[in-house]
């Protein structure tokens, strides 16, 4: 064998110089270039899909951030609003503002007087939210009763969709020929205007797409996430510190470690079922509440936080521990003064990644009833609420055309939340990063 290999290595064909060697060298460089090309192609494909995704969501969702308003000559008729003249809050808020709008429409289009069909057609151009607008104005300032003014009121979603071009200009839009004709008239007269859609950010969910807003879901998500952070961060870090720094390595800690790693891979809906059984059925906590949602999301994110915190603790160089203990620091002092502060950037990054996952999680929330139609904005974590991803799911399942653009808008808001959280993660990591 030795003899053979010696003769081979002495052979000119396997030397490091000569034409053959040059050929091999070129082949090596070609292989390297190919390898880099594979990498570039995969990054390009990933970027392409991301761009397509974002472009389609933005294209669909951007129009939801504006809303059409119609200018109408409204008379705040004292007889209609407050026939008793008491100006009581209860009387003012119970008044029939629809009549004011109908009167304003008749004033705008005198030709519809007496024609019930034409009246109904025109009324469908104005949102039911217009009544709420008028009520808000009256309650804010009862002195306007008896006056009249040109007021911008929200258009119905059908009219809005036609004007935005999302719906065809025919009866499939939900508006009759007559209504569409009036809409064109309004447009020509310049009494239509697209404004920023504040309802999207100030209203809770609604059956009327033009009035539906995200704030209820945002608040629900916020409460859930706050509870998740408050519970999973200290629990997860404490568990990681104990397992990494204090627990002796034996069969039990091995078993715990394997189980935590397995839990991280469990589908989140399973945690939802667990939360349903324990928090709702056994402990009797309120259904659909962000409190329970936060508890369910804590279950989902704990394994991730524990694992990332353990990795961060492991990454602290051993000589830091030796230095501290060599000076006579107790184990706890070593951990609290040195190891934990040095591991903190990694722990924070892991935590925020877990939180980013939690905010986008919908399956466990479905199980504990946070999927209900909730109009009121939750005031406390025990009020019924939905969360952003669940709101996306609810709107996506709604038949009204105007919910299509709102679904995309909700996704954009969710993505914006995620982007902010990830930016925070990077900022925190940079801020606390230390070199050694």
């Amino acid at each position, binding site marked *: 064998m030795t003899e053979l290999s010696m003769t081979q290595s002495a052979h000119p064909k396997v030397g490091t110089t000569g034409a053959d060697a040059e050929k091999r060298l070129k082949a090596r460089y070609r292989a390297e270039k190919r390898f880099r090309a594979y990498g570039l192609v995969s990054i390009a494909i990933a970027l392409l899909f991301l761009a397509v995704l974002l472009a389609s969501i933005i294209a669909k969702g951007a129009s939801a951030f504006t809303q059409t308003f119609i200018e109408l000559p409204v008379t705040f008729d004292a007889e209609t609003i407050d026939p008793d003249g008491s100006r009581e809050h209860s009387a003012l808020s119970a008044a029939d503002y629809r009549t004011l709008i109908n009167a304003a429409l008749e004033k705008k289009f005198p030709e519809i007087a007496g024609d019930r069909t034409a009246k109904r057609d025109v009324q469908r151009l104005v949102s039911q939210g217009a009544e709420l607008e008028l009520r808000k104005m009256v309650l804010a300032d009862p002195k306007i009763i008896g006056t009249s003014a040109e007021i911008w009121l929200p258009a119905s979603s059908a009219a809005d969709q036609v004007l935005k071009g999302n719906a065809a200009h025919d009866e499939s839009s939900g508006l009759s020929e007559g209504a569409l004709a009036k809409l064109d008239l309004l447009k020509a007269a310049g009494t239509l205007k697209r404004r920023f859609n504040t309802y999207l950010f100030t209203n809770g969910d609604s059956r009327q797409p033009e009035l539906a807003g995200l704030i209820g879901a945002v608040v629900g998500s916020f409460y859930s996430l706050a509870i998740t952070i408050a519970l999973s961060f200290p629990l997860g870090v404490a568990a990681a510190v104990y397992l990494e720094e204090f627990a002796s390595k034996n069969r039990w800690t091995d078993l715990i470690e394997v189980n935590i790693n397995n839990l991280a891979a469990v589908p989140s809906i399973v945690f939802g079922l667990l939360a349903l059984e324990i928090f709702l059925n056994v402990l009797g906590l309120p259904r659909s509440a962000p409190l329970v949602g936060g508890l369910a999301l804590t279950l989902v994110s704990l394994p991730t936080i524990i694992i990332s915190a353990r990795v961060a603790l492991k990454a602290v160089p051993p000589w830091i521990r*030796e*230095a*501290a203990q060599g000076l*006579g*620091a107790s184990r706890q002092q070593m951990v609290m*003064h040195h190891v934990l502060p040095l591991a903190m950037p990694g722990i924070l990054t892991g935590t925020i990644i877990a939180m980013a996952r939690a905010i986008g999680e919908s399956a466990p929330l479905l199980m504990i009833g946070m999927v209900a139609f909730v109009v009121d904005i939750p005031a406390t974590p025990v009020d019924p609420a939905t969360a952003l991803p669940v709101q996306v799911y609810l709107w996506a399942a709604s038949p009204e055309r105007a919910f299509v653009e709102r679904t995309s808008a909700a996704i954009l808001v969710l993505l914006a939340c995620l982007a902010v959280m990830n930016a925070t993660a990077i900022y925190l990591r940079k801020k606390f990063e230390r070199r050694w």
Partner: protein
Amino acid sequence: MISEAQSTTPASRPASDAVKMRATGANVYYGEKHALKEVNLEIKSHEVTALIGPSGCGKSTFLRCLNRMNDLIEGARVTGEILLDGHDIYDKDLDVVHLRARVGMVFQKPNPFPKSIYDNIAYGPRIHGLAKSGPDLDEIVISSLERAGLYAEVKDRLNEPGTGLSGGQQQRLCIARAIAVSPEVILMDEPCSALDPIATAKVEELIDELRENFTIVIVTHSMQQAARVSQRTAFFHLGELVEVGATEKIFTNPQHKLTQGYITGRFG
């Protein structure tokens, strides 16, 4: 205390016979591995004792027994008796935190905390409650840096990170950090192996000065270093203590064939 009385005598005095630490029948096992076998060794007060021997001979293991740093290693087991001033340091009642305050340690790789120079030195005194912040602590920090021969170099940048110093300065910072808690014994585990010759010379000079106030045990791979800094030398081989005696005697007239072979460079 005896040690204080002795510290007033010149450094060049003949080796005293006061025993600071004594190991009797010390064994260390790492799991199944018998890393240190039946070591009997006396560490004398105000002397530098050098532990030499080829890699894996157990010298660092022995050193780490002296302040129970082996406790940190999973599966390590120590038997036998190691006394500090006549008290067993492996006694159940002994507080290991207190022990490590009395027996400090300097490591192979300079390992300052990623904190300021000031906080590096102040950390030990703070956790042992030797001084609260303020003038008392300032005094400890400054005197420790002075005794480590580092003060002149860093006095204008006490608030800068200790990790920004050069390797040799970092090691002297670690020595200053160790002496800030006023230990009685300082263990040094190859303190110069990561340093250049100039930095090494400074640290060696420092070791010689520190002998006046502390008892020092140093592990070294450099026989020249052992010869330069120590008064007594112990030669370890394959986990056993082969020979121990006055440094001069070990290097000029070793009794054991293995010692002779090692110091003349035939193996190791």
